[in-house]
């Protein structure tokens, strides 16, 4: 089995930056990511796509190029196309098309990033409905732009994806924005923050300008969103300004923010707490990224939603702090080198309340109507979950056994937060009292054949 000083899960900005810092400090680093190429979500496939259609994706996207170049270092082994399906006591189990294997590490850094907040609305299980981020992934990764789409929801990423599709020659039908007028007013009250966030606001206004000039309609303060169609989505229906409206389309792209992807940190045994701000569970860690589980660290959007720049900085900070804990770097040097990064990261994080106020999640998707599917895997509706609570189910795992919600292949990634909110609302319990869905390995699919191969390799290896 290969041994490393540090194994990093996730090659997004956080993981790449951490790998570079740790390698520079002298650590032997494994950087593992299930994607075939480094970059994470924001810089997905940037090494390839920068040349061909980087212009459509924008300047921010191209900032990923030096980060990707930075992991080309003799002390960094990049396991691309490898998913991590178990983490235990300094051992990581990996799976790839070539089979399963195990690596050992003195420290593990989980930099698994965010996922789009699931958006349960009527019709969201129909083919043709995807995340807006999912459409962006197809654009970055395959150069495919979704045509004739209605973008539904709220958040800066909704506008960004609309602009990227427009530039790719696939102008969206319209944006159906769920933020209410009071959300903008609340954001305006934070004018001090707005001054500090100048760079982001300018970019956001430029995006909106580009959409306006191209004649892409934006419907504001929308509610009662429903996605309609017989076998696939063909209509987005909503009310706005007291009027019911329908737009025909070939695709509906949903987005209302991102939440930490905590499957790996859960499986590693890291304690999590519910964040009202993020409306999801987040792993508990200190400001270096150290968790309560010895030698397990977290960084980036998987630890706390802070955006790409904050993710990169938190990766650098964790990388150097781990080097310090393993004895590669003295405290004064760690503190001297990280102080500027910490300051800038904290500045980035201080801007988040503005985004949270200006682009709150779509309220009706946080408390879905009874007939809306919440567990996509097992086809369980919000109503069935409510009924289970009324019938006496107390915690979230109780709901799981009585309804099967959260029992499917996705292990609750798509429904855990919705279940938690419903249980709390129906039962008057506090969110920290109802438990969380357990994450048990394998957290990523692995076949029995691959497992058998891994066992053979372990038995045959000498240097274990």
């Amino acid at each position, binding site marked *: 089995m290969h041994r490393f000083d540090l194994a990093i899960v996730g090659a997004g900005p956080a993981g790449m930056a951490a790998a570079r810092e740790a390698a520079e400090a002298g650590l032997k680093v494994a950087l593992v990511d299930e994607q075939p190429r480094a970059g994470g979500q924001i810089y997905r496939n940037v090494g390839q796509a920068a040349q061909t259609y980087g212009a459509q994706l924008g300047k921010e996207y191209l900032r990923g190029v030096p980060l990707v170049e930075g992991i080309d270092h003799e002390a960094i082994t990049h396991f691309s196309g490898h998913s991590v399906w178990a983490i235990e006591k300094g051992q990581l189990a990996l799976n790839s098309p070539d089979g399963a294997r195990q690596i050992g590490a003195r420290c593990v850094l989980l930099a698994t990033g965010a996922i789009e907040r699931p958006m349960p609305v009527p019709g969201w299980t129909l083919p043709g409905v995807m995340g807006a981020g999912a459409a962006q992934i197809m654009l970055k990764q395959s150069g495919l732009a979704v045509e004739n789409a209605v973008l539904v929801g709220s958040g800066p990423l909704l506008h960004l994806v609309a602009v990227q599709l427009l530039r790719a020659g*696939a102008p969206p039908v319209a944006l159906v924005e769920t933020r209410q007028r009071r959300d903008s007013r609340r954001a305006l009250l934070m004018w001090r923050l707005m001054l500090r966030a100048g760079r982001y606001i300018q970019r956001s206004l430029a995006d909106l300008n580009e959409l306006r000039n191209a004649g892409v309609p934006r419907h504001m303060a929308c509610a009662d969103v429903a996605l309609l169609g017989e076998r696939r989505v063909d209509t987005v229906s909503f009310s706005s300004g007291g009027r019911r409206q329908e737009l025909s389309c070939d695709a509906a792209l949903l987005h209302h923010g991102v939440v930490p992807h905590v499957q790996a940190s859960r499986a590693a045994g890291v304690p999590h707490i519910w964040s009202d701000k993020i409306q999801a569970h987040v792993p508990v860690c200190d400001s270096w990224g150290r968790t309560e589980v010895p030698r397990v660290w977290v960084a980036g959007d998987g630890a706390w939603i802070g955006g790409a720049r904050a993710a990169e900085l938190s990766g650098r900070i964790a990388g150097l702090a781990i080097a310090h804990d393993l004895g590669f770097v003295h405290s004064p040097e760690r503190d001297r080198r990280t102080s500027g990064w910490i300051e800038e990261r904290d500045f980035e994080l201080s801007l988040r309340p503005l985004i949270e106020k200006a682009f709150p999640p779509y309220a009706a998707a946080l408390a879905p109507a009874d007939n809306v599917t919440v567990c996509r895997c097992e086809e369980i509706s919000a109503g069935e979950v409510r009924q289970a609570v009324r019938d006496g189910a107390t915690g979230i795992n109780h709901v799981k056994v009585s309804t099967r919600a959260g029992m499917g292949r996705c292990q609750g990634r798509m429904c855990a937060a919705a279940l938690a909110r419903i249980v709390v609302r129906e039962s008057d319990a506090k969110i920290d009292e109802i438990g969380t869905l357990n994450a048990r390995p394998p957290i990523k699919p692995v076949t029995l054949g691959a497992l058998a191969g891994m066992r053979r390799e372990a038995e045959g290896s000498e240097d274990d």
Partner: protein
Amino acid sequence: MKPGLRLKSLTPDAPLVEVQFGGEALMLPEGDNLAAALLAAGIDGFRQTPYQGVARAPYCMMGICFDCLLEVDGVSQQSCMVQVRAGMDLRPARQRREGPYASL
């Protein structure tokens, strides 16, 4: 009935290879993401759900939702996490709890 997702390709000249989808031949760009390539080929029935038996299509494109599940050469896999190879034998993942596919 409308066709599936409409996708505009910014890289139209990728070399194509033949795969089988539900027993029919399809030409897909070699090495491309399998879920995206199938969507571009007009496919939108990937996973069949266990109770209602309806078709699902990729939702997240990042390995979270499992709605892109296919049988790839007999093994159920998330097609958004797989690359196109020549000669792949692909079938929608049937998850009906009853009938011949109940074991999946």
